[in-house]
């Protein structure tokens, strides 16, 4: 079963069978402006919820993207190396950032539903 959640830091997480795909929301990309570079994590890296996993660079500044869940990075979106604008154009699908195998499925209970996220923005 696939479920999509959100965070107060403007990330979305889609989970299928203990594997999560993470990206930033369309709202976030709009706030950041045009991205010129996305610094992706190493495959195999183990991350704890709340850690900075990706750094996105706009023309003017760098911004951290935090992982909403703990686990191991198993894939990154290599398209972003040559085209960081994918995140701006398609933040919630083709502009996904990384995939991870979750280490603690219970952490999902702290994530927001779409409705709750929409209330924030």
């Amino acid at each position, binding site marked *: 079963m696939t479920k999509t959640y959100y965070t107060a830091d403007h990330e979305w997480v889609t989970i299928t069978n203990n594997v999560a795909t993470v990206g930033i929301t369309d709202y976030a990309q709009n706030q950041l402006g045009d991205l*010129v*570079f996305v*610094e992706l994590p190493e495959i195999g890296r183990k991350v704890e919820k709340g850690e900075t996993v990706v750094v996105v*660079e706009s*023309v003017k500044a760098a911004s951290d993207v935090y992982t909403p869940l703990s686990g191991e990075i198993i894939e990154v979106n290599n398209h972003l190396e040559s085209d960081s604008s994918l995140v*701006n154009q398609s933040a919630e699908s083709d502009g996904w950032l990384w995939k991870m195998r979750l280490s603690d499925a219970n952490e999902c209970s702290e994530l927001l539903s779409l409705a709750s996220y929409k209330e924030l923005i």
Partner: protein
Amino acid sequence: MADENLKRLPLESFHRESGAKFCSFAGWSMPISYPLGVLKEHLHVREHAGLFDISHMRLIEVKGEKATDFLNYALPLDATNLKNGNSQYNFLLNENAGIIDDLIATRLGEDRYMLAVNAGNAEKDYEILVQRNKDYNCQLTMLDAVFIALQGPESAAVCRDAGLDFVDNLLFMQGCEPKDNWFVTRSGYTGEDGFEFAVPASDAPALIEKLLSDSRVEWIGLGARDSLRLEAGLCLHGNDLNETISPFQAGLMWAIPKTIRESALFVGAKALNEQIAAGPTYKRVGLQVLGRQPLRADTKLYSKTTGEEVGYISSGGFGPFVNAPVAMGYVKAEYSALDTELVSSVRGKQFEIVVKRLPFAPQRYYKG
């Protein structure tokens, strides 16, 4: 950020209607970008014509029988030989030759000049000019005007088609007063051909609407303004220039003729000449960051060979036209030669930097 304390542009409603995102800069609420976005706005200026609201910047009018003598003293400016209708990039220096502000001075008559100064320093500049005016008794007035800039290779054509033919009488760094209370110069801050218009607030809406009705023109925000000037190798006071940096260290001595420096009539002359005699300790350089990830202001720079700290980045970002990170900074004189290799470390990641010639994008001023 106390939003209520920010100054508002006279044209703020135009920007809101155009979908601008706002930020705070130098105490003003400024449009940072429009729906086009920083990257496209930047490229639009290099390819067509971009319109900037620069009303946060201020104009100080200097009038009086002794106006020329006053400016020869208050600034390291050769006001005597500045012809009517000509502009000159210059500075307000303190006694240590530190740059209080960089500015553009335009002569508009025997005894009349206009100084265009930075928003964040305007009030300080004015007070200092008033102090220095004691023996000269000039009339100093900070004007209230809407100030807009049209920049890009199609600027002149846009102006012509808008009925502003007087622009054809101007070369780069020349100014005129084509109508009552209008002050126009052929200058800018992007490296491209362009014009800056200071007009009364009542004349502004019609002028803006006329220019924007031209399909070649787009609103451009502060984000692109910064990336444009950085690509063009132009300094930003507050980043690349400040009161602890002199025109000598900043590599801007071309703005102060040797004769003026030698006759030493201006405030800061003694200190400046002493620095020059002692030779440079630090120099401002262009910096190319290898790869695609930008390095930002205040990033420290180290020698690739010895690992010692040799300088810092004063302005850093991404240049959409050159499609690469661009930066400027200060390094010890012995590390300032072109192609010198430097390194830096940010968040545990190593970066390689090379000293490069400025500008990154060619300057395309209209000199006739």
